[in-house]
């Protein structure tokens, strides 16, 4: 057997230059950012398949319900809470979409990165640590939310239903709403061995929230006991925050909504640190 083949020149190869550190750089990229960069790279190659669910569907909803159904509602009851139905609905759909993206990206991709593709394991075999892996993934989810929310807000502006410069703040608000779901859901996903719990999560939490947390109609329309439940859901706070911002009806209550969502991010992140470490560092 010979030591020299392929790329090698006789008497040695250029593959291994011991002593020279090819990884050495003056400005090192933070570890978590290297993890986030992976997801971005992967998205760049596969984004087409996600366009329909993360963007086209909410826009179709907006067209069908906001415009078509909305004209009916506006004719009979002069809009909702003093604005046209489409202007009322759009920020609700925005927050609802953020919830779905945040949840989606923290369920199957997290489980896949643990079990199927083992992306996390590849990252952990490189210099990244378990918290870098987690933070990087959440950072990527936030970045993806920012992309979707920006486009969505631009569409709303095109529909002529953005009423205030406060709408710019709806960008971070939408991202916050999404991450408020992504962080705790990622914490949960890292404890699961099968994906069957995810459909339960959708059926009993995400879809009911989407329908009853003020996305399509004011929570005050619900029976009183259900109102209490609706007010407690994170989506209600996300919807209300986004709606106040795009309608320009900002008040101190919105600080409370944002604080609620921030608290959820913090709690979810702390929980995810624990579940990720327990799952990946054994």
């Amino acid at each position, binding site marked *: *057997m010979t*030591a*020299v*083949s*392929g*790329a*090698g020149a006789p008497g*040695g*190869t*250029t*593959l*291994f*230059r*011991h002593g*020279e*550190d*090819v*990884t050495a*750089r003056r400005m*090192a*990229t933070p*570890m978590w950012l*290297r*993890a986030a*960069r*992976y997801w971005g*790279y*992967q998205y760049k*190659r*596969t984004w087409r398949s996600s366009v329909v669910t993360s963007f086209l569907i909410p826009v179709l909803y907006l067209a069908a319900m906001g415009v078509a159904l909305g004209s009916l509602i506006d004719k009979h009851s002069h809009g909702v809470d003093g604005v046209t139905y489409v202007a009322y609905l759009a920020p609700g759909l925005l927050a609802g979409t953020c919830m779905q993206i945040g949840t989606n990206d923290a369920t199957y991709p997290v489980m896949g990165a643990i079990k199927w*593709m*083992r*992306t996390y*394991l*590849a*990252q*952990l*075999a*490189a*210099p*990244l*640590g378990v918290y870098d892996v987690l933070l990087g993934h959440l950072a990527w989810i936030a970045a993806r939310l920012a992309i979707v929310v920006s486009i969505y807000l631009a569409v709303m502006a095109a529909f002529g239903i953005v009423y205030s410069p406060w709408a710019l703040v709806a960008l971070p608000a939408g991202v916050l709403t999404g991450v408020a779901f992504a962080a705790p859901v990622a914490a949960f996903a890292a404890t699961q061995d099968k994906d069957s719990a995810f459909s339960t999560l959708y059926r009993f939490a995400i879809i009911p929230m989407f329908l009853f947390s003020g996305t399509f109609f004011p929570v005050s329309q619900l029976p009183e006991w259900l109102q209490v439940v609706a007010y407690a859901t994170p989506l209600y706070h996300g919807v209300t925050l986004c709606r106040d911002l795009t309608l320009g009806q900002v008040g101190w209550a919105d600080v409370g909504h944002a604080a609620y969502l921030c608290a959820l991010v913090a709690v979810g992140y702390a929980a995810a640190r624990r579940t990720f470490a327990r799952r990946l*560092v*054994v």
Partner: protein
Amino acid sequence: MVEAHGLVKRFGDFVAVDGVDFSIARGESFGFLGPNGAGKTSTMRMISCISPLSGGTLRVLGMDPLKDGARIRARMGLVPQEDSLDLELTVLDNLMIYGRYFDMPKKVIRERAEQLLDFAQLTERANDRVDPLSGGMKRRLTIARALISDPDLLILDEPTTGLDPQARHLLWDRLYRLKQDGVTLVITTHYMDEAEQLCDRLVVMDKGRFAAEGTPRQLIEAYATKEVVELRFAPGEHEDVAPSLVALAERQEVLPDRILLYTDDGDAALAEVARMGHVARSTLVRRSTLEDVFLRLTGRTLVD
């Protein structure tokens, strides 16, 4: 490069690695030979600072895995037992992504990827998705990926398990070349031929402990005879024949499907068996291997 004393790994009450000592020198090719469940992967994961130790001390590249895990991993390449390639991306993308984890500039990764693809004989597949590649190709890609950062230490956990013989030989050739290039290799395997081919020095591992340590030659000399006679009889005949053969060899092993006679002169022993009037269904005289060493040390075969 690696220094372990009393290394222990526990999972709850279960002890997977039970206080082992070893030291691996620069440029050496060091093997862990043992059957499934011996604790090889657990040991590799501790060396690669992925899994915290439960006891003992460990130094890797002169550093402490607990404190300097990231710095250690920055200088080592890991080929895990199960591939963790991104199946939806291309071969080249997988190398690019991995290099980026080490924060290498894209240009540097691209140059190095080109060399490594050549080394792994995957140049033609560079822009193909990983998913449909054969097991051997995926394995070679995983090895190329682990080499992207020009590591000082390459850890290979069962590099050829599950591959067909041709793919294994191709991989051995590649690994042999790395060895020649002076890369420090740590290899686990349950194939004795793999250990014999690739390892300068190895430990025989069973149930979390080391049963023996040395070069393949030393181990065979110490624990086996020069030659082995393998005899297969009709089912059920083994028990009857075995006692009468004891005197013919230094040692005898009775396995479910065959009897092994350890002796320095296989042909003589075989002639003696025939003279005694035993008619074996098939006979074989061969040199001793690490498999025999393992059998001697543990009373079991490597691959069940």
